[in-house]
């Protein structure tokens, strides 16, 4: 590479950066203009059961589970899609469902506790 070519290369770089910076705000504006996220949904854990036991939500919904028992529970997908750490009294766990489908889950501490999220 000649000395002249190196100078051309350095000269071009700021121009490229400027173009990138110019377009970046408009790209993020486009993302913000997309459809709004669905309203969040809640599942309560009371008396060793998930309520509602079956919950139907649109794609993109964030579901939050709250343990209202005096005993810790977990929220674990039967198919390994999501798995909470143990949740003690009043602790929560959230998961955002980005794909349609039926998600069955249970409490791995008290496996008689089962629930289902239908995402459509």
């Amino acid at each position, binding site marked *: 590479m000649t000395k002249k070519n190196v100078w051309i290369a350095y000269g071009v770089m700021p121009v490229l950066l400027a173009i990138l910076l110019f377009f970046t705000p408009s790209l993020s504006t486009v993302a913000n203009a997309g459809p709004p996220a669905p309203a969040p949904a809640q599942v309560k854990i009371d*008396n*060793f*059961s998930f309520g509602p036991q079956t919950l139907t939500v649109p794609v993109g919904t964030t579901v939050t589970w709250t343990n209202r*028992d*005096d*005993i*810790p529970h*977990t929220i674990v997908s*039967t198919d390994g899609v999501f798995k909470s*750490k*143990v949740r*003690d*009294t009043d602790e929560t766990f959230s998961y955002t469902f980005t794909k349609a489908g039926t998600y*069955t*889950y*249970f409490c*791995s*501490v*008290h*496996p*008689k506790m*089962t629930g289902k999220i239908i995402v459509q």
Partner: protein
Amino acid sequence: MTDKHNLIDQKLQELNEDGIDRRGFLKCMAWAGTGLVWTISGGIPVSHAFGKNVAHNTKSKGDFTFVQISDSHMGFNKPANPDVVATLQAAIDKINALPAAPDFLLHTGDISHLSRAEQFDTVDQVLKSASAKDVFFVPGEHDVLDDNGKSYLERYGKNTQGAGWYSFDKKGVHFIGLVNVMNLKAGGLGTLGGEQLEWMANDVKHLKSSTPIVVFAHIPLWSAYPEWGWGTDDSAQALGYLKKFGSVTVLNGHIHQIMQKVEGNVTFHSAMSTAFPQPKPGTADSPGPMKVPPDQLRSVLGITDVDYVRGHHSLAVVDSTLA
């Protein structure tokens, strides 16, 4: 209580005279509700009232006593019992005051409430005040949260197999500690699993059928109340390996109350918790902690004292409350 004790004494007398009224006696004791001790006497469990331990009068070389404690739930701090350290300490004090000092303790799980190191530390610390220095553990589901039992095994898993199961012999009695709280399946009950069952089959294969067997595990190995998860899916297979034995005693915790069942050669017995009581099957919306008036709490918590008397072919188990 006096009437109950009279009834217990009367039943005990009948038992000693004819030696066959065990089933009726156990029913009676279940009705009496509190204050039982089981005594191992050569194979057949015999109950008698706490503090009226006839076996102790004839205790000889080869006899021994152990105490089962369960469900200390260290770290629990809800209204059902805001001070589980104090009630565990009361249980140890009760054990230390027994007329016959136990050779060792069994802890049938839910040592901790949330599997946290400091909770295990506290239990270990309180247990140091027990006159019996050897403590044998099996895990409850609360002891294997989040880390698949790793921290439990690091602490209590020495000389155990798999998820923490093991066996040992004591003066002719074969003890088997089982783990039925791992890899629980959605909608299911407690699980032993193929690997553990295979180990157990081999473990008892070469034992004489006259060997008294004591099995201990956290979740009941019988259908105590499956609707609340109080049972073990593959327990029938485990009990199948024990059919040839004349005396099998199965001890568990998990349900925080005394419950007993005699089925052929097998006596099932569940112990009280040292932390909080749980409702009788189906009497509440859930098996969650049952709140009782503070002055009654210690009457629904307790320990289980087990005596083995060589040659008597019986094993006596007595539950006693902390009240």
